[in-house]
């Protein structure tokens, strides 16, 4: 009896995405499926790179408008993965904004985290909030390129190879740099 391999979730997701891209290239109205798929990730990445929610929301719109403009030229079989391509646009938009507003205050800003009071005693919540506040402080002291790598990995949800395509480095270099950043952060984070 032949064994039919089951498709993994990843395979399904990739196939769905290819279909979405082809549909959107044929009819811009079908772009909705793609932007809804990536809306939260793009927004979170931009939110981590910009000063406030309003700017992040504005730029999220602009990024998707640009992506819609550029989509006819995107060749999924020959070019980079769609996620990397989309975050190239997002990164480019952030770079533009930084350049045009270089005199403004630092835009890097991460939202305060308020933990839901579920199944945790108040003391635990307070300790966690203090810990997260300390982590935010440590993040704010990182170089911009390091913060960007973290944003691409954690907010955008990109893999190291995808980040490599976005920032123009080798996957090995990105992986190595991410590991170093985390190692340094871990030491600072848990230092007493």
């Amino acid at each position, binding site marked *: 009896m032949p064994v039919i391999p089951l498709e993994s979730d990843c395979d399904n997701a990739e196939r769905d995405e290819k279909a979405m891209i082809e549909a959107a290239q044929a009819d811009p109205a079908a772009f909705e499926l793609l932007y*809804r798929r990536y809306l939260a990730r793009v927004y979170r990445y931009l939110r981590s790179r910009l000063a406030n929610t309003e700017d992040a*929301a504005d730029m*999220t719109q602009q990024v998707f408008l640009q992506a819609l403009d550029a989509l006819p030229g995107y060749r999924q079989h020959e070019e980079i993965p769609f996620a990397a391509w989309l975050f190239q646009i997002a990164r480019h938009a952030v770079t533009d904004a930084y350049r045009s507003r270089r005199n403004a*205050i630092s835009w890097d800003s991460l*939202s305060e985290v308020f933990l839901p009071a579920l199944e945790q005693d108040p003391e635990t919540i307070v300790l966690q909030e203090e810990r997260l506040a300390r*982590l935010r402080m440590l993040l704010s002291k990182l170089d911009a390129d390091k913060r960007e790598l973290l944003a691409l990995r954690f907010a955008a*949800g990109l893999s190291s190879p995808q980040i490599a395509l976005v920032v123009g480095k080798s996957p090995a270099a990105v992986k190595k740099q991410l590991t170093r950043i985390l190692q340094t952060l*871990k030491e600072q*984070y848990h230092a007493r």
Partner: protein
Amino acid sequence: MQDKRMLYRRYADLLSVNSSPELAQLIADLDMIYTIDEPPDDLARNIAQSLATHSNKQRSATTRTQPAKRGGIPQTHPALYRRKAWQRSMSTLATVFLTLLLAGSLLVVLNLIRQGRTGGGGNAPHPIVPTAAAGSSLSLNQLHMIDSMNGWAWAENERGKNFTVLHTNDGGYHWKMVSPGRQTFGEGSWPYFLTGSLAWVIVPQTAGHPALLFRTTNAGQTWNQTTLPAENIGAASFINAQTGWVTSNVVMGGRLSAVEIFHTIDGGQNWTRVVTSSAANSNHSGSLPFNNAIFGMQFSNETTGWITGASNANNDPYLYVTHDSGHTWHQQMLPAPEGVPPPDAGMVIWKPQFFSTRDGILPVSFWSPSGLDVYVTHDRGESWQSTSFLPVTNTNVDMAASTGDPMFVDMTHGWLEVNQAHPMIYMTGDGGQHWGSAQYSLPFALPVLDFVSGRIGWAIGNAGNGATELFKTINGGKSWMQIRFIIS
């Protein structure tokens, strides 16, 4: 992310079963920090609207944007180019915008909006408008967008003598002439837009003849024509296709001698005079005192409505309410603005605007001290409360009020443009409790602003050569992109 298995799966490139608990904790916390933000509730909808509009634009051969290089990073979107230029010019003010609040407009220009929304403001003649550029047949004059896609415009021909109604269903990129028979309306005509499908045009006739009323209930596909009960129609308020009121200015000896209010419940076929406001009958109980500077009439339902205008010699507010469809009227008083000495030089009360059956706003411009206070009601207009006093003054010498009429889209978001040394936009995001301003350079002069939400709005701007241009914002007015529209 509290599920450890999910954490290890998601960050398999960084975490393994051999990783230290400290690293796992760090990654879990980073994940929490970086994914705590959710897109605002309205972002997906705003993007859908922008994309739909943009898709329509893409389909237009005349407005095609530059294609991106194959597979590479696309060129910056045209909207961003405009945004960048705009923001560079005001970089030092960028942070001010983050907390800022609102805009207003030259009174003359706002009169255009007000007349578009209320059917005209009292005795004001037809709008004074910028002349159209030579060679262009039509120039936008008023805007009344219903939502992000659908709306109306009032356009004039090159000489400003004739007008036409335009309608869009793609956010302003394409406008269709929808005047009856594609005819134009003569000098002195003015529109009243209520919904995406309901609109009226009041058309004066030669002296001694009553004005005409054109009405469409299907976005201009068809119109019907009726005759109004008077010659000089000053203001109008319709609450649906059948029920409305108009004011008539009775002029004797070259002077305004009375204001009459007429009521229809059959779409304008028949009109009933419900009240006459003149000096002779101003003292009767329930009468409407005569005022030669009425600035607004607004009905919220079949029975309740307000007439507003400039205060009298005693600085009493001209704010009268009716609860019987206009037959009897009762004055409402307003508390003094918060935080400033009691104004002592009168005021202009703009028309009230309701956003629910109970909640509404009432903008009031004061002369001394000069500024604006947006009063609010939460009891169907039974009482009005001051929010805060915004000390501003327009510098135009021919202003009928110290400020224009602010544009509100809900109980919280409003804009006021003030023309001082440079046009300034004031914005509020909390219903007038706080206002922020920015003395930045608008990409156009003398704008007519029209918003449909706290973020999405349009502006008609004067390009400087007499022509008007259309701009759109998707971030509450922080930046504007030009819409190269087509009229067909």
